[in-house]
């Protein structure tokens, strides 16, 4: 299973991901210049939050124990068996917004104009998610969960070096401060 990771040190909060997500995924025109002329106004499925110092692009995490799926009254939110992604079946959605209230990350959005709940489906039918493709700083990256072990190996090494560097004896707690 692949997830979208955010390099916090690279995200400048430019909102390019938001703009192009709305244009490509929320509009009929599929280009930014056409999308801004459309009604109802296209909406993005990714949102940049945080402040100037720490901006971060927020997407649906496609939790494996997804509370939104349990909360959905009509069965519109389902897990697609092949990709393992949580998707909204728009024809079943009754726009009750229960899922938006249950999402721990707040990344399912009501779209009253179209009477559906809107969430990231990781552009499952495309080669790469739009947000990952357009990010000018390459802050967004599509990574395989299986590779987490390897990706975060350097963090373990850094922490272990720091601990060993203290040359303390006896029992140690992994206090990162």
């Amino acid at each position, binding site marked *: 299973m692949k997830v979208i990771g955010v390099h916090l040190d690279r995200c400048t909060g430019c909102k390019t991901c*938001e703009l192009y997500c709305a244009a490509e995924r929320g509009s009929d025109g599929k280009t930014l210049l056409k999308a*801004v002329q459309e009604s109802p106004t*296209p909406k993005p499925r990714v949102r940049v939050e945080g402040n100037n110092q720490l901006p971060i692009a927020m997407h649906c995490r496609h939790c494996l124990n997804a509370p939104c799926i349990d909360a959905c009254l009509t069965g519109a939110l389902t897990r697609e068996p092949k990709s393992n992604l949580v998707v909204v079946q728009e024809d079943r959605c009754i726009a009750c917004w229960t899922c938006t209230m249950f999402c721990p990350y707040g990344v399912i959005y009501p779209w009253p104009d179209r009477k559906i709940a809107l969430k990231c489906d990781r552009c499952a039918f495309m080669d790469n998610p739009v947000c990952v493709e357009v990010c000018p700083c390459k802050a967004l990256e599509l990574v395989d969960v299986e590779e987490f072990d390897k990706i975060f190996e350097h963090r373990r090494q850094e922490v272990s070096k720091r601990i060993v560097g203290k040359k303390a004896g006896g029992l140690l707690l992994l206090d990162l401060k």
Partner: protein
Amino acid sequence: MESIQVKTVDPISQELLRSAYQRGLKLSWDRFEKLQPQDGFLRIGLSCPYGCLQGPCRIDPFGRGPDRGLCGLDREGMTAALLLRLTLSGALEAIPEDKPTSEPSWAPSLKEALPRALKNLGEDRISSAEVPKAAALLNRPMESAEGMIAQALRLALLTIGWLSKGPASQGRKKQLPLRVGYGLLAQKEINIGICGRPSPEFLKALLAEVDKNLSAMGQVLSLGEFISLEGICLPSVCTSGEAELVLNSGRINCLIAGPGTDPSITELCRTLNIFSASSLDPKSIRDLVKKAKEAQNISIQAGFNPQPSLVEEAEVIAASSILEESFKKGPAKKLALLGGADHPCHPLGWIPTEVTPALLGKGFSVTGWGDCGLWMVKKGLASAKNKRPVQILAGGQGPVLALKALADSGRLKDVKGIFYTGIKSCQDLAVALGLAVLGLRVGMAVPLPLWGSEKARNLLQEKLAAMAGSLTHFDHPAQAEEILDWFIK
């Protein structure tokens, strides 16, 4: 590599592009691809152009985020202010160098269009005072979107007035012979390339030095600009979009970077070990010729041997009187003006080589300028051998030169449209707007940053319509068929 044909339509350029890729060089197309998508907020005009440094403020076009800037500026005001800022830069570019405080001049034949434009803009006359007025409006947002658009149109008119004072439209009967093509590179052993627009004094001294020291061995070639000097037009190897490819050919021994040269050109010279000097340093001329001689035997890229016959010739019109005569004599009832710069969102040369023959076939008389004009010459469309050759306008003034001739010959009404293939400077944008203000139908193949505000777009079109003009710009890079339709319908 599969997409090489969508980068340029010229087979020789494609060959050079392939060789550049094999050598690992990064050219404009790579930079363009890497820049995609370009800043969405700026592309639609919703990135605030006021330099107050309390921002940058941007308005979310989809309504979730901010709908106003910090000062309260709304999307209409922001888009209109961006148009005003771009037009102001364009007007400043057009200020006559010798007389920075001079007033614009107008052809008497514009007596119908000009008063109509002035009346609609609420002015008796347009003067250089429009510049400080626009600067004051761009100090802090205080004017309505309508007011800012009107001011942009006044500046556009001022730009036309200033450019009309240029040397080429002062009645000199001049037609300059121009040669264009890669074959020029094979004609002499030493080639000195020129980018940008060096001063006439520098060029004069350079040509004298080349004549003295290199005589029959060397020549000075333009890399994409119309450069005229004392009745001659420097031969041009390529259009400005292909200048990097020509450097990669290994046939340029040294380069002169005049004002307006892109940083990538001088950077590429460093990478390829081609000696380059600035035209702002007149002392460099002797050194330059010496270095060119030394570099004579250094073959940067073996294998590029263009046929010397790959050269097309044309007469470039540098005076409105010549154009006026041709408009008077010309049998074509419909006139089309097609010009402007190369733009990487289209394959280089695609629009000129597709649209021009189609327009000629439909009975139009076509006049070209800029890179588009060079493409027309390069593809033999402007050759005197043709039954109805395309007319090419000298650089700098472009369509402004045609405007006076059209007005004097009484053929303004026959102009079906003035179309820009690409816009490279704010001056081009200001001229395009100015032509629309004077009641002409103007179009451009690249989108303008106005799509963020429907109201600002409508205000602009309404104002232009009141002056019997129009400005068409698409929400996508226009295709050749769309441009043809635009002219025909």
